[in-house]
């Protein structure tokens, strides 16, 4: 036998160099998750600043102009730098594995889409360092308030950051679509694809159609601000409401960009821990596509009070979108029905999602009814609604997904006890924070106000909400401890710790760079289940 050892073709590099230069979808996916989580932390601290200021009447901690920066950057960070990239990160990690592909279709573009995000985040946050502070016109940045007359350089940085993030999303969407249409393993037909991959597919279509519209709107705003564009400023002949139409043409579908993959995660987790297939797989796909399509015809429900919207049409479409959403809720319950339910942490978070998202769906119907929206629009009722959808929905699904896929990503399990402690604190904190906001909104408290009169009757509920928000902050401690401990000494996961059904569980944890040594036969949407239960597979 020869004694010369094989030498790697490329000399070994440092781990840092590996991560910075990687084009492996799994590493990029993990980078997405870490980066998103950092901005979740930043956005969360900004939110705690908002809640601290609102705890009592009177301006105690920040000036009103600084307060406006807090909630503007909080929302922008949470939406653009946390939820959307976090779900794209899960997509990056899971979709190629789920469809039996070795990587994304365009690995280098994939790396580019990721690295634009930290850059965009730095650009947005650098607003705090410039004259006049960060963007303060709300995450919606309506002109004329967002025009140069009223808003400083922070708004320009905000526009640049959001356009960068949009570009990253568009590149990512193209990559997902090509990957899904071109790189599926033999046997993996579209109607055998895991629901999560389907939601990423529909989301990518939404991104591709909607994000360029946002980008063009923001570029017009940038031209208005810096080169006298006259697009949106009535003082120079522009139309203020035009911006709102353009903005919401993206930003309403963006809600589904933030919710559909979350629904996808839940639809992967519920069948696994019910030991049953997803109830109504095809109906679920149609419902996802229907939400995506209807999602383009409801944008003006954010503008019912502008007096320049054809109200009945948008009201009808908004009501209609509740139907496919309701179908999904029943499919999830049908999945659990007569199952063998077990409750590891991912399942607990999935159940939290079902309850919170149910509330977020029902309180949304109030605003679909135009006259009721006249009462509730721009009050804390809307703040309650959007947080029940985006926090109770998307963020709970994100944690469900983290606990579910962490073993695949790292080869080690997260601790169950710490995970459930985190869930209980977060669930209580979330409801204490956001449920009273319904009542505050009904009592007439508008959103985005830095202060309120002590005689308005809003004192107690605001204090409750602030206490709740602190609890949410506390809930992050067991999570961070859990991740740090589990990375070092968590229980070894093995290939398939949850007895899950989709292809990512057919390879090692973590998977090799090329993903699969060999693929099982793919004869249904649950190829790993079929391998495990050949007797039940025939259907």
């Amino acid at each position, binding site marked *: 036998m020869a004694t010369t050892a094989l030498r790697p073709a490329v000399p070994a590099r440092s781990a840092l160099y590996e991560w910075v230069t990687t084009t492996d979808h799994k590493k990029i996916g993990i980078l997405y998750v870490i980066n998103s989580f950092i901005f979740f932390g930043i956005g969360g601290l900004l939110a705690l600043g908002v809640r601290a200021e609102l705890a009592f009447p009177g301006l105690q901690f920040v000036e*009103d102009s600084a307060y*406006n920066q807090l909630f503007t950057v909080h929302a922008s960070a949470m939406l653009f730098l946390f939820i959307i990239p976090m779900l794209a990160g899960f997509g990056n990690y899971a979709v190629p594995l789920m469809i039996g592909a070795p990587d994304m279709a365009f690995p280098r573009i994939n790396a580019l889409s990721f690295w634009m995000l930290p850059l965009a985040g730095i650009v947005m946050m650098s607003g705090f360092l410039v004259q006049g502070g960060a963007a303060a016109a*709300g995450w919606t940045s*309506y*002109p*004329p*308030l967002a025009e140069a007359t009223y808003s400083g350089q922070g708004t320009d940085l905000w526009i640049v950051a959001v356009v960068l993030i949009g570009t990253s999303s568009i590149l990512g969407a193209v990559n997902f679509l090509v990957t899904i249409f071109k790189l599926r393993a033999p046997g993996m037909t579209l109607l055998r694809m895991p629901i999560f991959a389907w939601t990423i597919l529909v989301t990518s279509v939404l991104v591709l159609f909607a994000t360029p519209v946002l980008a063009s709107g923001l570029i017009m705003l940038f031209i208005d601000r810096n080169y006298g564009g006259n697009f949106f400023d*009535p*003082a120079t002949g522009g139309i*203020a*409401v035009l911006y709102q139409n353009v903005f919401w043409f993206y930003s309403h579908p963006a809600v589904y960009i933030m919710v559909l993959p979350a629904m996808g995660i839940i639809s992967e987790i519920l069948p696994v821990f*019910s*030991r049953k*297939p997803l109830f*109504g*797989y095809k*109906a679920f796909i149609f419902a996802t596509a229907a939400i995506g399509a209807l999602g383009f015809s409801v944008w003006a429900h954010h503008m019912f009070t*502008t*007096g320049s919207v054809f*109200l009945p049409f948008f*009201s009808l479409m908004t*009501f209609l979108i*509740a*139907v496919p959403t*309701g*179908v999904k809720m029943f*499919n999830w*319950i*049908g999945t*659990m029905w007569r*199952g*063998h*339910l*077990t*409750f590891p*942490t991912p399942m*607990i978070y999935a*159940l939290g999602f*079902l309850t919170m998202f149910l509330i977020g769906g*029902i309180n949304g*119907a*109030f605003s679909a*009814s*135009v*006259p009721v929206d*006249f*009462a509730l629009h*721009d009050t804390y009722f809307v703040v309650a609604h959007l947080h029940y959808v985006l926090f109770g929905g998307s963020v709970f699904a994100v944690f469900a997904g983290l606990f579910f896929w962490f073993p695949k990503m790292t080869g080690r399990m997260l*601790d169950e*006890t710490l995970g*459930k402690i985190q869930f*209980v604190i977060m669930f209580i904190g979330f409801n204490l924070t956001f449920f009273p906001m319904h009542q505050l909104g*009904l009592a*007439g408290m*508008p959103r985005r106000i830095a*202060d*309120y*009169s002590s005689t*308005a009757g809003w004192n107690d509920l605001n204090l409750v909400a602030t206490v709740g928000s602190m609890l949410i902050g506390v809930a992050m401690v067991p999570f961070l401890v859990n991740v740090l401990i589990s990375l070092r000494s968590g229980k070894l996961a093995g290939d398939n710790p949850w*007895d899950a059904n989709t292809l990512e569980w057919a390879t090692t944890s973590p998977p090799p760079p090329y993903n699969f040594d060999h693929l099982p036969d793919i004869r249904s949407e649950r190829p790993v289940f079929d391998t495990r239960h050949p007797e039940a597979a025939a259907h």
Partner: protein
Amino acid sequence: MTTPRRTGPSPAIVILIAGALSVLAFLGILLLQGPDLAAQLQSVVDSFFPPAAVTEQGREIRNLYDIVFWVGAVIFFLVEGLIIFAVIRYWRRPGKSADLPPQTHGNNLLEVVWTIIPLAIVLALFVISWQTLNTVDARSANPDVSVRAIAARFQWTFEYLKPDGETVEFTQLSPEMVVPVNETIHLKLRSPDVNHAFYVPEFLFKRDVIPGQDNNFDFVADQTGTYRGQCAELCGAQHWAMQFTVRVVERAEYDAWFAEQRAAAQATPAPSASPGAPSGPQIDLAAANIAFDKATLEAPADTPFTINFENNDAGIPHNVEIRDADGVSLFKGEIFNGVDSRLYAIPALPAGDYTFICTVHPNMTGTLSVR
């Protein structure tokens, strides 16, 4: 097949802990507010509804809200009940045999049913919403009173319009709109700068005030009283301070008020705010960022004195008004735009505590103690 593994605290414990803590927190909040539990419970129930409407349009909206609320509540308890039932009924305790449950893939009939029923519900909600919308959004051909609300950063002024609905009869500079009860008021909305929104919680209504686009709506207030209103569309740093009141009065009172205002507007703009030359001790007061720089002022009793008032808010109107403990206005200084200053000559006041306030921004207030 692996045996089911222990997975930390059982779900029943988690649900119980979460439920118990929520109930405790809820009861704690109730007890903090007072011992009268029945009244407290009633106020909790009330908090899920908008305030009692004081306009005809608001009543329509409230009726619609109630319908949407009860439909939503029933759906919530039904679906949440199904979720909780499924969790408890189909919870697999560890150690049970590892055989598979029936692998149901779907049920077409069931899926059609749970598509059609929600569809019927939302279509019904849409139809009644549309009907209410037509009532709420109707305009009268002959409104009894026409007012134009001007929303500017960061104050409200109200122009009372002549019967042609366009020309201004007089302008109410303090942020208070006075309207007669049980008559149709046509409100036009105008903004010279950024987007605002006219919002009165007791009207259950708001409409955006958008520059370059004069919005309007009609309302009929059917309850006399004073109602708080506030800008509801982010308009900048002092958005929170942009408040106003609507005072609904009987026709006779309205006519008297109207005549008085019109007479005052037609009179020569005399320095009515400053009767007499500035005299007595001078007190300094300044306003910046919609706030006074002092929370308390001191003045000698039974002696006229002067307030040297500096308005440092560029383009924003302020003044100083002095009110007694009952809220009766004793002195109302001229309202002027910053950056500028005025000397207000204040008549002699008996010893006691008074309130000084900016008429345009009722949030700007402080105590004047006369000794």
